[in-house]
């Protein structure tokens, strides 16, 4: 029997173990041997994982003793006490955060282990582990933070670590710029998050402490129920944050570029954990979101659109990691759709299964890239089945899971989302029923595409003959294959935690207390017959997609893709260029901003100051003479004139 105080101590261990690892590896990178770096870098996340399991056991014990037991709270210190705001630095362990923490520390530890093999020859080995541990720390803060503010600190922290890790191989300028792009796009989302917090506090008088906020919202006479417009604003602004972090339309553009980082980083941050933060946040605030049917509908629509949009781009990509990146965007769309229709449990369920199979896929891709000596173009691969048996098997299992082959994890979770999209309706009745059909249609379309592009990837990579004669692929070392095997097992079996049998759905029962507030506002209009019928439909869709992929890339119609490319050149080009979204952003947002700034610079700065910075000290001597003249004829007098004009304008304004 583990006591509550013990769980509280365990919470600190969970969160701070990775931080200690980050500090040790960050401060003494040159002192420690590679071996020591590995032990610290992998060991502390593992400690964190073990502590999580112990906390889970303790939590189960407490819950069996008292069925109403909901959460463990551990407050470290009083963080901000300022006027009407007081925020504790407090951690919060409830069923939802347990699931998330298990995913983060479990998969995180495996990926750290994998990195030992993958990053073996990298000169900045210690820096890599330091950043990765720091990421884990931030992510755990995000997941376990009791207040929105602490969640936000984690939220920004993971963004920063992501920036550092995407740009890890910064010798390549493109990679550094990709990191910067990710950070800035994320900050646009964070802007929404920050404003939402202000609105929440001041317009709604809400608390940043999530349990208190929940208690406030539970009161039907509170302002949250009367001021729906403000609740909609807050939830949509928070959702803007989620679109940044979870790579949804319109802010998904950073994720494909983020693949510039090392592959384990892509697996951990840009597939399994960080990008799911938005979904987690919405699920965490389910009680707030259900108050605004408009927000819910927006969330669901954005999710569904993202799912199909990204899947369609994924169909034509040739970079193995880019395909997986668009696949991630698309799967995140599913999760967002799920929480948008009110199926919070299904969203978290898919989040969990996705973490397994997508991490496995990325690590498998890493293994392939490793074996192919850095080659990422799938058109140059092929026939790796025999050379890399373990990678091949695990990759196949995960591919089948994501495509929705029955009895694998992805089948159950995706199916539940499809069903929810069709069947769940907001109890207010303000959401038009045809929207449900639209969401379902988009989702099933995306499911078909998923099966096609994933198996296209699989066939081009593993079957057939190797298409680049110079490569000498080989199986990866054990430190890389063991995580693959573990993750593939998870990808196969994780679905059984959420079997679609009434009352036997372990995950739903487990999460029910967390989503009680949200669930009460959602009506289930579907029957179990419908659910089983949909299972049949999605099985057919998955198999059809796989069959099509086989036919097009392995089977009889191999000439068709090239023909399609020709006959549908316009569409193909649009897809390859990702619908020109990056270009559009460049033209609409980036260029005007920089252009305006330059214009201002030319008018005000360069026109008056004529750029000392540009000339530099080399011209200093020639400058001496000019300085005197400038002082007499231009600058200072102009500055003084502007000063005086400013005063006049202000005076006139006031009078």
């Amino acid at each position, binding site marked *: 029997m583990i006591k509550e105080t013990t769980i509280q101590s365990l919470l600190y261990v969970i969160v701070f173990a990775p931080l200690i690892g980050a500090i040790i590896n960050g401060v003494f990178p040159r002192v420690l041997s590679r071996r020591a770096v590995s032990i610290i870098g992998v060991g502390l996340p593992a400690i964190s994982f073990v502590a999580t399991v112990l906390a889970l056991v303790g939590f189960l014990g407490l819950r069996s003793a008292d069925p109403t037991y909901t959460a463990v709270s551990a407050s470290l210190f009083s963080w901000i006490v300022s006027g009407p705001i007081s925020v504790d630095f407090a951690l919060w362990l409830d069923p939802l955060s347990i699931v998330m923490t298990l995913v983060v520390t479990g998969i995180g530890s495996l990926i750290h282990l994998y990195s030992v093999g993958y990053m073996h020859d990298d000169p900045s080995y210690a820096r890599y582990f330091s950043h990765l541990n720091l990421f884990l720390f931030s992510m755990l803060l995000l997941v376990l933070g009791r207040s929105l503010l602490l969640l936000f600190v984690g939220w920004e922290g993971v963004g920063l670590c992501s920036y550092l890790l995407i740009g890890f191989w910064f010798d390549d300028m493109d990679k550094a710029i990709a990191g910067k792009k990710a950070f800035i796009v994320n900050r646009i989302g964070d802007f929404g998050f920050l404003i939402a917090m202000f609105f929440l506090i001041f317009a709604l008088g809400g608390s940043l402490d999530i349990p208190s906020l929940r208690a406030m919202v539970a009161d039907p006479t509170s302002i949250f129920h009367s001021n729906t417009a403000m609740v909609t604003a807050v939830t949509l602004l928070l959702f803007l944050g989620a679109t940044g972090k979870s790579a949804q339309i319109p802010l998904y553009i950073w994720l494909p570029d983020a693949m510039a980082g090392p592959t384990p980083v892509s697996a951990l941050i840009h597939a399994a954990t960080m990008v799911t933060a938005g979904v987690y946040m919405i699920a965490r605030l389910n009680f707030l979101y259900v108050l605004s049917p408009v927000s819910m509908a927006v969330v669901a629509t954005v999710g569904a659109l993202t799912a199909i949009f990204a899947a369609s781009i994924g169909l034509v990509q040739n970079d193995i990691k880019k395909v997986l990146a668009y696949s991630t965007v698309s799967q995140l769309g599913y999760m967002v759709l799920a929480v948008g229709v009110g199926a919070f449990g299904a969203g978290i369920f898919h989040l969990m299964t996705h973490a397994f199979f997508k991490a496995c896929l990325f690590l498998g891709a890493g293994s392939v890239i490793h074996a192919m000596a850095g080659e990422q173009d799938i058109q140059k691969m092929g026939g790796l089945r025999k050379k890399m048996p373990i990678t091949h098997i695990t990759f196949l299992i995960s591919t089948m899971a994501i495509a929705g082959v029955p009895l694998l994890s992805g089948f159950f979770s995706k199916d539940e989302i499809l069903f929810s999209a069709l069947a769940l309706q907001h109890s207010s009745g303000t959401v038009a029923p045809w929207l449900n059909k639209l969401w379902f249609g988009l989702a099933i379309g995306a499911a078909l595409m998923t099966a096609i592009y994933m198996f296209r990837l699989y066939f081009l990579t593993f079957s057939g003959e190797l298409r680049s004669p110079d490569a000498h692929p080989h199986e990866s070392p054990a430190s890389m294959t063991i995580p693959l095997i573990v993750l593939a097992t998870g990808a196969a079996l994780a679905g059984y935690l959420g079997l679609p049998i009434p009352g036997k759905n372990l995950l739903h029962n487990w999460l029910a207390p967390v989503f009680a507030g949200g669930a009460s506002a959602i009506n289930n209009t579907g029957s179990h017959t419908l659910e089983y019928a949909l299972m049949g439909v999605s099985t057919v869709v998955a198999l059809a997609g796989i069959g099509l992929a086989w036919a097009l890339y392995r089977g009889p119609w191999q000439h068709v893709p090239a023909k399609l490319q020709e006959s549908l050149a316009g569409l193909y080009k649009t897809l390859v260029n990702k619908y020109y979204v990056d270009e559009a952003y460049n033209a609409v947002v980036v260029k005007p901003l920089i252009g305006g700034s330059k214009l201002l610079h030319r008018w005000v700065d360069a026109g008056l100051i004529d750029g000392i*910075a540009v000339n530099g000290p080399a011209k200093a001597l020639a400058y001496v003479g000019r300085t005197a003249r400038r002082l007499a004829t231009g600058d200072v007098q102009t500055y003084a004139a502007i000063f005086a004009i400013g005063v006049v304008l202000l005076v006139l304004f006031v009078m």
Partner: protein
Amino acid sequence: MSDIIAFSPVLLAAITGLIVMVLDLLSGKNTHKGFLGWVTAVGLLASGTAACLLWVGGREISLPFMVGMVQFDTYGAFFVTLIAIAGAASSLLIVDHNPEQGIHDGATYPLVAFATFGAMLFVVATDMILLFLGLEIMSLALYVLAASKQTSPFSMEAGVKYFLLGALASGFFLFGAAFLYGATGSLDFVTVGRTIQDAAAHGSGLSKVALVMIIAALGFKIAAVPFHFWTPDVYEGSPTPISAFMAGVVKAAGFAVLARMMLTIWGTAEFSSGWQSPGGILLILAVISMVVGNIMGIVQDNVKRILAYSSISHAGYILLGVYAIGLGEPGAVGISLNSGVPFYLLTYVLATVGAFGVLALMGGQGHEDMSLDSIAGLGKRSPILALILTISVLSLAGIPPLLGFMGKFVLFKQVLLADPDRNWVWVVVAVLNSLVALYYYLRIVLYVYFREPEGEAAPIIKSNAGLFAVSTMAVLVLLLGVFPGKAIDASNQASHHAVLSITEAQAAPAVQQESAPTPEPKQPLRLRQVDGLKVDPSHIPIIRRAMELKLRDSGPKPK
């Protein structure tokens, strides 16, 4: 005697200057003058410590000195401490920077000490004449310091520019003070404030013009648009430790005075509500400063210029906070709990001094190239300096958990609290601005870590003193960011007492009527009612305590 004790922190700074001057004369002509930097730093820190002791010692919260000339309350103590820290850091930065740049001059240190003294005097003064003296002592010393690198035409140009424009600003200040005297017949804040509030009807036109002129003069010191043009040129041209001093100390002092004036002189409805009021123009200045500062920052290629524009945009954020101060009535709870401005200044000063400090430690042996290229690859050449620069810059950008984020959070929160219905627009504008600003802050980080230097990079100055100064700043930024509680408490207390001591003085009968048996009736306490704002029940005790404290403090004092 208690007068002297109350004034001792400020006096200590002046004494430091005198001691350093004498030590400079006593030490031989060819001795290394670096030790003077340490003496200056110790002296200034002693002054800061004295301020803290007076504060913590739990003596009276305000010690009026010399009949309304000086008000040394916790508000003053807060800023004196902050200014002392920044001044000490700057003097430590000079220790090795100057010899490397070919400035072998012991006179720099007394000037830094006197400039700090001027800034402190500026902060604690509550009389226009003393205020002006503080302003001039600070400015005069800085004109010379800006030009102290005589081998560099840039430095000379910076000094002359700063001097000419500074003289113009001082002129406006004097005009303003004179008109204010003409309108109210007094020079000390309290009487001026009371007269303006009693007789808002007559003479208010003149006092409005006067206030605008004072705002313009202070706007020059804090580098608010459109009084900012000197900033990039002067920050760039001056020796970098002096830029740090200007960006840190001068701005903190300027804002401290502006905020105090906001509370005492024009904290009335007529002078601060609406657009067309001296308070309202602060809003205009705030918004254009933010926008212009950030947009201009994007296209700069020189790190010092980037930081200069960053400081302009930060002036915008803080001005927004000052504007919010005026939205409430003086002494209303909404204001007295307003820690936003002091706290933000704390976060800004530490980070900006840290950032300029790192730049001051680069470019040894006379190199003075501060283009972005010159910091390329700093991450490899000096990981510790790179880390400090990154922490400082990210804090300025407002990335949690660094101090800058807390500053923005607290400040914007209080701007919103002052008037939720209208101010949300400005908060959104400010947050959007900080988003734009991220671009140029990240450019610095990008160059530090992700770029290789082209050609021979400037050597880094080996300086224990400087390293000590900047790493202290970075550690403070990091630690206070994670544990901001105490700092926020302190700023709360400071601004709270700034209000209390002023309202107390205003409520007290004027000096001539000291024998009058009954004091004038106090204004009843009001909690500003804000539509749609629900006070968290758990905070009611805090608010009530604040109100009680105020009630007790503003009651008649036993003689």
